[in-house]
């Protein structure tokens, strides 16, 4: 079981709700994923075209809401968004994102740490999205972060676990859950993250823009379970020299 800030989850797959073609597809994909925690963003209502209200299709009894602070460029903006999320009934849980550069969408470590300190002080359960920096991860957990969310590769790129080496160090040192977030584009990517001991993964784009998001959600759910089970089973490890898996003895009759 995954435990974050004292709350337990059966599923180790977190799902983002962006980019789905319709609210119905999103709802079905979430159900197929088995996820119990979903991220949402905060945006100004378009008064000329309000569109669907996502809250009318998401079951708050079924999913823990993890509002994000996407769009925040510094700690002050992130704190403002966090307070709005709480005021709108989003609860105390927060995926903290501070991404000042729209080109790379990479998180700002200094502002993320600053915002974490402020928001932990205000009683938020802060899950900061970070570059895969082991030193930063330690500082964030010391500051009271409920988990750390290192990126596998940049947001929306589907390039997989390019940061594996650093994520392995983060996992080795962590006293809080490690959730690999961003860039995981295929079930094999999430299986890899889970095999090396990640506590959970968060995916969005890979499901939302798949040809069949509902079927893809099932595939990712299975990959998370497969990777986690392999981690718990203890992988056999790799070696550079070949070693026969059939016995070397008992071949005398061929001579």
């Amino acid at each position: 079981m995954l435990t974050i800030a004292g709350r337990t989850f059966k599923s180790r797959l977190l799902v983002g709700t962006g980019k789905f073609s319709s609210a119905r597809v999103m709802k079905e994909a979430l159900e197929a994923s088995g996820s119990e925690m979903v991220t949402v963003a905060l945006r100004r209502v378009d008064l000329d075209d309000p569109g669907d209200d996502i809250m009318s299709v998401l079951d708050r009894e079924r999913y823990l809401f993890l509002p994000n602070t996407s769009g925040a460029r510094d700690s002050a903006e992130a704190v403002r968004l966090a307070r709005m999320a709480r005021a709108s009934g989003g609860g105390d849980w927060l995926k903290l994102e501070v991404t000042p550069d729209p080109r790379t969408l990479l998180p700002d470590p200094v502002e993320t740490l600053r915002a974490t300190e402020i928001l932990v002080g205000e009683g938020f359960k802060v899950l900061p999205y970070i570059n895969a920096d082991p030193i930063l991860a330690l500082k964030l957990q010391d500051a009271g972060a409920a988990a750390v969310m290192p990126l596998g590769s940049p947001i929306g790129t589907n390039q997989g676990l390019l940061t594996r080496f650093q994520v392995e160090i983060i996992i080795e040192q962590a006293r809080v859950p490690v959730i690999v977030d961003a860039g995981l584009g295929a079930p094999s990517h999430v299986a890899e993250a889970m095999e090396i001991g990640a506590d959970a993964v968060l995916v969005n784009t890979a499901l939302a823009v798949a040809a069949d998001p509902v079927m893809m959600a099932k595939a990712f759910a299975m990959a998370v379970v497969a990777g986690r089970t392999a981690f718990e089973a203890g992988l056999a490890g790799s070696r550079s020299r070949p070693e026969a898996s059939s016995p070397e003895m008992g071949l005398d009759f061929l001579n």
Partner: protein
Amino acid sequence: MKIVCNGKEKEVRDGLTIEELIVDLELNPDTVVAECNGAIVLRPDYPDRQLSEGSVLELIRFVGGG
């Protein structure tokens, strides 16, 4: 009177409350968070909170995001 709502100037009746404005816009007051002149207004205060000339209002809500 004139207010600024989500960046646009809007003519509304005097004494309009945040609750009334949200309902007039066919939005759900339970899922919209209001920030008036830079300060968050809590949901229970919507029915009593009157807007005034020049009020700057932001109406925000959850959307899909990762």
